[in-house]
Structure formats: structure tokens, C-alpha cells
């Protein structure tokens, strides 16, 4: 059930209606949201609902045990059980085949022909997201940073809350469980803001991301040898805006849907291509993942507490694993390594602030940072590493002419304009809508549904669903 599908529209309206009916009954409301979340997940593949249920039950039980346990050795053991189970499932479904191949390839030069069998399980949608979410709960509990959740319905809802279940933002227990205990808060302003946010996300997804993909990016990346340098460069720019609008569009819809149900989930993007250096980029891009990696991986590894080389090694290892989180493929590892290397080379924040550069320098830094990110996107998008050489040599060949349509270039300009204008016009325009009378607002939203429906070229679902 994609967010940009008619099925989701009907589903969400039903959930909103029932939620309004049960709004004052905490237990019934939570059961409704939990049942809706499982129904939503089972619409993708009903068989894998058992996996979430398993993760939920194990972490709930471990949480209860952790809360009642004072002996440090036992607490550590309970944490290890949680890590093993969650990462074991993730590893089995997502990484087993990749590492089986890699092991075989590594041992072959030593004369050992070890062909480990492959499994043919489909990757459960959203497994990387909800695994990280439940892990944050057990780790925070182990650190005594949060209280234990004793209500199973509330805990299960935290793990499976449907707006952010399949592609984030990754919600922390310390942010979400208190909201479930306190109850949702739906004011007119929050409800209308949520609705506007959903349409903003749909516009980003359908009008910018999907059209950029359908009108040029997909075709160019499929056969880079058939296109000129100009087309290759513009397809790479296009992909940068496609992936941003696709993923931030999904996050907008998730945040908007949660807001309409009365919950706050964290922001995931702050116009990342405005960053002046790589550290800033990672404070603006996929914020919920980067802060998760910082708090649960980088800092436990030692963070920046050790020597400079140790800090660099920690950063590099964190980003390498961050790359691998996206998928079991060499290009994601290279993407992670590229960002890890760049982060290690970026001066620490204090040094950057001290310099207080002028506007021109800031713009130049932003341009440089954007183009460094662009190189990363090339590694990320390319499916076959053999195409990397074809793509880069084609881009550097300097050949002119274009097979891309003027509509593609117009769309690219629009995407850049929306991203780089000082205040997001989609946000500013949104507030004016609330001042319209009800029939006009309803007509506007109905018109948007028709327009977005017509513009929905049959394209892929959200890019981050595959992670």
C-alpha cells in the first residue's frame, strides 16, 4: 500500500474516522492504531507481519527483564540477546546472500571453493527501519535512559506505527512512548498542517521525483553509453533531486499522517543541499538515521574522544556501516566509504564557525559540498560498477546535444528553485490555504487528488522502501 495509492487514501480516511470515534478512549484508540498498522504492513506482504510481532514480543519481554535486573552482567547478556535476535534477522534477510558470495570470492584465490547456498526470501519491507527502532529501545533501557514500557499494546504500536513503519523517520522510544502514554493531541491547526504536509510530500514525490525519474534519470542510468556528457551530468543532478524529493516526500507524508492522528515524529530533512560542508550535510540529510548512527554506533566506538586518527577511523567505520545499512551491495559500501572519507577530512565544527566566511565563500562551499555529495549519488545509483567507468568517462568526454526533453530541464530547474530559495514556497503557500472557506479548501484538495492521480506515471514506489 503505497502512500501515493488510492488504496492508502481510502485506508487512511477510514483510520481517521475511527480514530475520531475512539479519540477519548485511550485503550480502544491504541488497539485501533495497532490493528491499522498491522493491516497496513500486511498489505505489503502478510507473511512478514510475524517478523515484526516476533521482534516486538522479544524486545518487550527483554525490556521487562532489563527493568527488573540490577546485575550488570545479566543486563549485558539481555542486551546481547536483543542485538543478536534483531541484527540476526536483519542479517539473514538482507545480508546473508551478499556475505555468502563475498566469502566465496575471498576464499577462491586461496584455492578453497566454498559456495555457500543462497536463500530466496524476499526482503521484508521496512525491516532496517523497525529493527533500528526496537534496538534503540533496548539500548536506551540498558543505559537506563528511559523507563520500561509495561503496556504491550503501546510498545507494539511504537514498533509498528504505520506512518513511519516502512521508510522512517526512525522514531526513538524516548520521543514516542511518552506521547502514547499522554495521548494524541489534535488541534485544528495541527490537523490542517498535517493535511498540507501530506500534499506537500505527494507533490514532491509525484511531480518532482517520479517525473524526473520517468522523463530522464532512469533511461540515462540504464544505458549511459547512449547519452551525451550534458545528459549524463543533468541526469546526475536529476537523481540528486529525485532521491531528495522521493525520500523527503515520503517523510513529509509520514509526518503529516502522524500529525493528523495527533502524534509528532521527528523531522528527517532540512534542505540538505544547502549544507556548506559534509558534517552539516549529515545534520540535514536523513537526520533520524544519522543521529541513530551517531548515538548508537559512533559514540560507543569512542566518537571524537580519542586521537584524531581514532576519530577518523570511527567516522569512517560508522559511515561504512551506514552505507551497508542501505543494502547488501558494493556500491552502497563505496558510497558509505566516500562519505566516511569526506567526513574525516572535514574540519570539526568549532574550526568552521571561527572562520565566519562571507557570502561568496559560503556559496562556493555549498556548491563544492553539493558536488561532492553528487559523486556519492553516482556511486549510490549505479547498479553495475562496470557502468561507473562508462558514466564518468562519458560525462568527462564533453560531448554536446541532448536526448532529454525541455520538460525535463524545466523540472530540474523547478526542483533546484524549490530547494535553494531561502524559504520553501510550498510551506509558505500552504498557510494561505487554511484561510480559504471550507468548500474552496475541499475543492482545492479534490483537484490536487485528480492532478496527482493523472501525473502518477507508473513509476517505482518510494526509493527507500527497498532499504
Amino acid at each position, binding site marked *: 500500500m503505497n502512500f501515493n495509492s*488510492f488504496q492508502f487514501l481510502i485506508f487512511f480516511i477510514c483510520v481517521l474516522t475511527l480514530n*475520531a470515534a475512539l479519540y477519548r478512549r485511550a485503550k480502544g484508540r491504541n488497539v485501533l492504531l495497532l490493528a491499522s498498522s498491522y493491516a497496513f504492513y500486511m498489505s*505489503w506482504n502478510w507473511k512478514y507481519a510475524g517478523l515484526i510481532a516476533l521482534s516486538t514480543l522479544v524486545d518487550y519481554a527483554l525490556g521487562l527483564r532489563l527493568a527488573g535486573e540490577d546485575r550488570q552482567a545479566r543486563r549485558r547478556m539481555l542486551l546481547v540477546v536483543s542485538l543478536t535476535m534483531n541484527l540476526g534477522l536483519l542479517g539473514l534477510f538482507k545480508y546473508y546472500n551478499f556475505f555468502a558470495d563475498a566469502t566465496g570470492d575471498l576464499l577462491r584465490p586461496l584455492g578453497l571453493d566454498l559456495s555457500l547456498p543462497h536463500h530466496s526470501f*524476499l526482503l*521484508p*519491507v521496512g525491516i532496517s527501519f523497525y529493527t533500528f527502532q526496537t534496538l534503540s529501545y533496548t539500548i536506551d533501557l540498558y543505559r537506563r535512559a528511559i523507563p520500561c514500557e509495561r503496556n504491550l499494546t503501546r510498545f507494539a504500536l511504537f514498533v509498528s506505527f504505520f506512518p513511519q513503519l516502512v521508510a522512517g523517520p526512525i522514531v526513538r522510544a524516548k520521543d514516542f512512548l511518552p506521547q502514547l502514554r499522554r495521548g494524541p493531541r489534535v488541534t485544528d491547526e495541527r490537523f490542517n498542517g498535517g493535511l498540507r504536509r501530506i500534499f506537500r510530500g505527494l507533490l514532491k514525490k509525484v511531480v518532482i521525483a517520479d517525473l524526473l525519474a520517468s522523463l*530522464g534519470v532512469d533511461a540515462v542510468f540504464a544505458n549511459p553509453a547512449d547519452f551525451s556528457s550534458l545528459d549524463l551530468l543533468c541526469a546526475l543532478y536529476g537523481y540528486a533531486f529525485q532521491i531528495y524529493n522521493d525520500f523527503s516526500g515520503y517523510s513529509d507524508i509520514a509526518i503529516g499522517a502522524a500529525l493528523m492522528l495527533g502524534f509528532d515524529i521527528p523531522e528527517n530533512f532540512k534542505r540538505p543541499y544547502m549544507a556548506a560542508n559534509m558534517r552539516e550535510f549529515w545534520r540535514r540529510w536523513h537526520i533520524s538515521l544519522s543521529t541513530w548512527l551517531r548515538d548508537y554506533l559512533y559514540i560507543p566506538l569512542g566518537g571524537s574522544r580519542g586521537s584524531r586518527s581514532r576519530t577518523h577511523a570511527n567516522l569512517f567505520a560508522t559511515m561504512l556501516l551506514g552505507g551497508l545499512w542501505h543494502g547488501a551491495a558494493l556500491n552502497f559500501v563505496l558510497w558509505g566509504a566516500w562519505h566516511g572519507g569526506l567526513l574525516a577530512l572535514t574540519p570539526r565544527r568549532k574550526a568552521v564557525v571561527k572562520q565566519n566566511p562571507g557570502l561568496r565563500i559560503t556559496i562556493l562551499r555549498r556548491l563544492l559540498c553539493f558536488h561532492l555529495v553528487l559523486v556519492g549519488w553516482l556511486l549510490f545509483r549505479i547498479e553495475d560498477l562496470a557502468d561507473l567507468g562508462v558514466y564518468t568517462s562519458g560525462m568527462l568526454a564533453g560531448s554536446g546535444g541532448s536526448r532529454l526533453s525541455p520538460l525535463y530541464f524545466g523540472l530540474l530547474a523547478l526542483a533546484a528553485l524549490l530547494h535553494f530559495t531561502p524559504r520553501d514556497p510550498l510551506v509558505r503557500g500552504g498557510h494561505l490555504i487554511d484561510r480559504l472557506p*471550507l468548500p474552496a479548501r475541499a475543492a482545492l484538495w479534490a483537484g490536487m487528488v*485528480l492532478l496527482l492521480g493523472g501525473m502518477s506515471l507508473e513509476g517505482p514506489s518510494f526509493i527507500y522502501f527497498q532499504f
Partner: protein
Amino acid sequence: MRFQQLKVIYFSLLLLLAAECVVELRASGRGFDTVLFGGDPLERSQATPGYGPAPGWPYRSHVPDPDDRRPRVWLASGSYLHDVHVPPASNAASRLNLALGAEVLVVNYSGAGWDMTHNTLMLRGEQADALPGIAVLYQLTNDLTALARTGGQETQRQSGTNNGDDFFSRTLERTTSYAHLTTAITARLASHSVQEDGLGVQGATGYASRVRDFIRACRERGVQPVLCTLARSTGGQDPATLRPEERRNMFRYIGNVSALGWLRTIDRWNDVLRRVAEEEGLLLIDVDRALTGRRELFRDLVHFTEEGHQALAEVLRAGLQPLLKASLGGAGEAK
């Protein structure tokens, strides 16, 4: 949270429903299939006693008696033979049934939008007593649109999803608003995509593998497969010969193949059918050579007029004659 807050959503839904009612009323008046006004007026207006679709017989061809044990010939196809624009008694399957006489039952085993994968799946899932002796495959452009979406490759789903085949999506796709939107916006946008002038070797390989899978399914079930090439309204490969509505129709379904690409691919895949038939030792009925370029037989690039259905039935009868003679000893002689 109050129901008051949901008013804007309910109001928007009402407006959408009202808009759908208006366009459906107009479409229904013109004889089109609509969701709200009783299904398929074309189907109703063409209801012919003794012909499907009927309860227990979804096929647009002659309804047999329940204990009918005559040898069956399936015409496994898509909208070319399902064709709701032609009364069931006048489509190629029914005319072929008449032409072959009482010894054989021809079943129009076709559906609008079905591609070859669907035909194969149906064949594998059919009950043994309903299976035919011969299955005639007439299927190409639906596979072209399916394979064009993946750059010519057969793909497997990467993650566990079952999107796009639910009740809501199917209902949405039947609405008149959807039809208007796909024609007015989607097709226009799609025509701005980067278009390939064909699906290349990968496409031909993907198509050949579909054909071979159909043949395999036939053999597994003890059915004799027969292949047909596909006919089209214009011969040659000059897109300028296409009528505007023929061209626009292509982009309604897929935007990354140019008009030239469509013509080239149809020709190339017809050659695939000829080659596979030869390699597998199968009967091939060359409908392409018999009917392509006879514009009066087509209402668009690949769909037939009533006259076209009659012509197709004659080509199929003539093509099937040797096979029927061998297996039935005489059926198929011109009646």
C-alpha cells in the same frame, strides 16, 4: 479530535464522487463501460443468446452444454480477441467456431489487458477436464508494454510487496475519471520521456522466454501449442503512416518506446515467433503476412473491426486445418 476536523476530507471526497458521476453519466450515455452505471453497457447491448460472458462462462464465445465433450481449441489472447467493441457472436473466436463446424468447440480464452504471462498462468491453473487439445497464442503488444517498463528484462520483485493488484486499484482503474486523466495528462507527460527506438536484444530475449514458457506450460498439460504472428494496420516502419489516435494510444500505456520503436519491436518479435516455432517444431500461423497493412480491417494499430475479426477467423481456420485434419480426421474443412 473531532469529526468536525474531518469535514474538509469528506467534502473533498463528495466533490470527487460528484465529478466521477458526471463524467460516468456522459460516458455511459455514449455506451462506455462505467463503474457506477451498471457495468458494461456495450456488453449488455451486444448480449447474444448462447454466447458468453454468461454465468459460469466468462469467455466471449459460444456457451457449450455442461456435458459437452468436444475437442476444444483455445484462442489465448488479450484485448485483440476479447474485444468488447465487437458483439461476442462476431469476434474471431465465434466465427472460427462456426467455420470449423460441430466437431470442435472454440473457446475465446482472452481478456482485455492480459499479456502472455497471464495466458500461461491461466493455462497452468485450469482444471484438467476443461483443457483444450490445441491452444492458439495471439499475443504481443501487451508483452511489449510489460517488458518496456523494465527495459526489456523479466524482473522479479525485490521486496515482499503485492501492490497494484488490490480491489481499490482495480476499481480506480475502471473509473471514467481515471481514463480521462490517463489520456489527458499521463499520456502527454509520457510522450516527453526519453524514448528508445526498440527494446533491443534484451526485449527480444524476454519475449522469447515468455513464448517458451507458454509452450512449456502447454506441454506440461498435454496441450498442443500453436503460435501466431501479430498483424497491424500499417506495413513498413514509417511512424508517419500512423494516425494520431494510434500514436497517442501507445503513450497511454508506456512512454519510453517511440512510435518507431513500437513498429520495429512488433516486426522483430514476429520474427522471434517464427524462429521459436521452427526451433520447437510447432505450427505457426503467419497472421502478420496475411493481414498487415489492410487498414480497413483495423480500428487502431492492432485491434480489429468486425470485418477484421472475420478475416482473422479465416486465416486461423486455414492455418489450423492441417493440424485438425491430423488430430480429428477432417474437422476444419470449409463449411
